[in-house]
């Protein structure tokens, strides 16, 4: 899991996390208000957030342990800018309902997962524009895998970066974290590709098609 627990990070990092998150949520909500009524977005966004919450409960065996899905790339691809508040709500519920992650690190964790979601959204959108539209499904699956994989890799890097603020002494812990996540990046890429290909065929409007 790329969640950082409570009790690890320092005050300035926690504060910065909350500040960035507050600004990005405000921007995302303002943006979607500008485009139309927020009254329509809230219920829809909520149900989709619940879906991602449920999906992230799937755990997959990797060697001796098992991992929960992260899916931040998919959240971005499907929800666009609004992925950021959705991830915040999802993490808040995970912290309150399961004790996953933590309360004080909510801001930081949202940055770690939310920024990659926005990046995945960008990659997917740009990729769709750039590539000539040949087979819709295979293109979607490649782009989905790419965006999904990169998003998780980025999430891991950001988490590692947060730990790095603690000092050189954590170098090994950071290496362990990265090592642990390499198979997860692959798993997430495969799953994201498969989900996006499925959606391209069954419900294209979900991926902005």
């Amino acid at each position, binding site marked *: 899991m790329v969640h950082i627990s409570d009790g690890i990070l320092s005050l300035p990092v926690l504060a910065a996390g909350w500040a960035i998150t507050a600004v990005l949520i405000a921007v995302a909500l303002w943006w979607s208000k500008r485009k139309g009524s927020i009254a329509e977005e809230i219920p829809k966004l909520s149900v989709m957030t619940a879906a991602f919450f449920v999906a992230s409960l799937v755990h997959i065996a990797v060697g001796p342990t098992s991992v929960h899905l992260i899916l931040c790339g998919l959240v971005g691809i499907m929800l666009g800018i609004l992925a950021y508040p959705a991830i915040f709500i999802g993490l808040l519920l995970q912290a309150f309902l399961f004790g996953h992650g933590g309360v004080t690190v909510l801001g930081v964790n949202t940055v770690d997962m939310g920024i990659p979601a926005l990046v995945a959204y960008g990659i997917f959108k740009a990729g769709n524009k750039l590539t000539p539209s040949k087979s819709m499904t295979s293109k979607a699956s490649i782009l989905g895998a790419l965006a999904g994989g990169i998003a998780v890799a980025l999430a891991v890097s950001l988490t590692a970066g947060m730990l790095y603020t603690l000092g050189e002494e954590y170098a090994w812990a950071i290496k362990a974290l990265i090592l642990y996540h390499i198979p997860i990046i692959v798993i997430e890429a495969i799953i994201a590709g498969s989900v996006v290909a499925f959606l391209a065929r*069954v419900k294209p409007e979900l991926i902005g098609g």
Partner: protein
Amino acid sequence: MSVAISVQNLGYVYSDGTVALEDVNMEVYEGERVVIAGPNGAGKTTLLLHLNGILRSTEGEVEVFGRSLKRLRREEIIRDVGLVFQDPDDQLFMPTLFDDLAFGPVNLGLKEEEVRKRVKEALSILGLSGYENRCPHHLSYGEKKKASLAAIISMEPKILVLDEPTANLDPRSRAELIEIIKELNEREGITIVVATHDINAVPELADRVYVLNRRIIAEGTPGEIFNDAALLRDNNLEVPEVYKLFEVLRCFGYPCEELPLSIDDAVAELTRTINERHIHLHIHEHTHEDVNRIRSKYEHHG
């Protein structure tokens, strides 16, 4: 006849403490059609999930063809027992119908050629040939229901277990589905277990009925079960309308020992009785009382 499924002293408690099944005993013979009837929340679905080993209880035993499910691997069980879910959307999750029908056989480790053959057969049995590349999600509800049955048929189970196969269907789709289930039983000799509270389908689908309400309340032919009004009332089950009406007719002097359960039964019954003698309907002193007693018997509220 040999025993296909035998359930012994089965009990099941969900993790939140809900007791769904208690001391359930049941036997299904090869080639037979058995209906499990019971109200909402009776534990029908829970029982069916035990029949193919999805749920495994520590209490009691389920045997298929004499072998305890506890000692079988999932793969071995699903070769024998195919389970069709109530909501077809739960079962159809592939982008094309072909993929969905191939899913089971592929998981069984069959060769590609065999898989293709089975998919083709299953589609043709259900009258869905030519639908291979359709997306199941975009089918109509009736078609989805058939598709979800096809996805199990393609695994060629010896025992077919269906959860509420007729729920939510409009009359044509419902009649088609009942017909298909009957044919699978008659032609291919597949043993059928159906859970339902669609009581009007029972006479057509059942050789034998078990009434379930957490425990097995009763067992018998459809006729025997419907004859026991108290049983039905206590377990919140309906009686076919035809049956009720003949009860009423009996009050008006229609001579009838075994009450018919369906229109076809009724026609046969009428023809037989009338051929023997002419029938006079009339009102006795106690007719109204009798009729009222019958009506209140079937009033479910109050």
